[in-house]
């Protein structure tokens, strides 16, 4: 049973490392989908916006995680005795 649970967690982990980042990516895709299918906006500006937002979130979350890692290295939490 624990094998199945760890396998399921690892399969989810293939796609999700940070739930906030995943939510942001899905929100960007949903907004683009709504603009194209719902608002019938011109596809080219939507595609350009989609690509730029995906690239921007990639940079943002990489830098944010690096900062978190850096802070946790500078102030290591006390180990439980």
């Amino acid at each position: 049973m624990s094998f199945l649970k760890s396998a399921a967690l690892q399969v989810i982990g293939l796609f999700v490392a940070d739930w906030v980042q995943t939510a942001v990516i899905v929100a960007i895709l949903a907004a683009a989908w709504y603009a194209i299918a719902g608002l019938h906006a011109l596809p080219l500006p939507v595609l350009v916006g989609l690509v730029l937002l995906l690239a921007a979130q990639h940079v943002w979350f990489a830098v944010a995680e690096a900062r978190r890692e850096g802070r946790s290295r500078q102030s290591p939490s006390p180990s439980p005795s």
Partner: protein
Amino acid sequence: MGTQLFTFGAAFLGSAVESVEALTIVLAVGLTRGWRAPLYGTVAALVSLAVLVVVFGQLIVQRVPESSLKLIIGTLLLLFGLRWLHKAVLRSAGVVAMHDEDHAYQQTVSQLQGAVERRDWVGFVIAFKGVFLEGTEVVFIVVAVGGTSKYFPEAVAGGLLAMLVVAVIGVVVRKPLARVPENTLKYAVGIILTSLGTFWAAEGMGASWPFDFVSIFFLVAVFLSASQLAVMLVRRSPVLA
């Protein structure tokens, strides 16, 4: 022709990286505890993966409409590729340690040392789990890259050839393939999968890309530039200096 080569190459590179990781686990088990159990585990995992591909692959391709399939697979491929790219950026910037097959091998060996029973379930389960989980990634890459384009056979051929090449090299050298530039490969494959995921997700929404498949090269350029910018910003970050 270009599209076929691109599909084959993406499937080959992605599958090769995962096959190297699976090989490391199987070698660690085989050289520590004997070959019978890990080979049974490997075969069992490969059969399970083949069953999954046949059952779910057929169901998905036959039942799900093409646009929905492109949107779902594109979104998953985008999430998958960005996760690889994110890790590759942090490794390139020195925030996370480089993946080291020698280290992974030694870690598995130290976990496995001990008395081996006649039926070595530990060896079987570890090999099965390693091959199955790494194989799931190979299956996903092949299905995602090939299933949404018209070149499924090329993607399957790329995945199978990668597994075969890695397995043959593993049998010949009998040690982890530490010289494979795994992190660089993951960086490159992360960019390719992210670009393909964006391309198909947008097509699934009903948008048409200018210049059709050629625009993937534009996407590759954008995500490569973004990841290089991320590496530069992380290296300059005062917290990490």
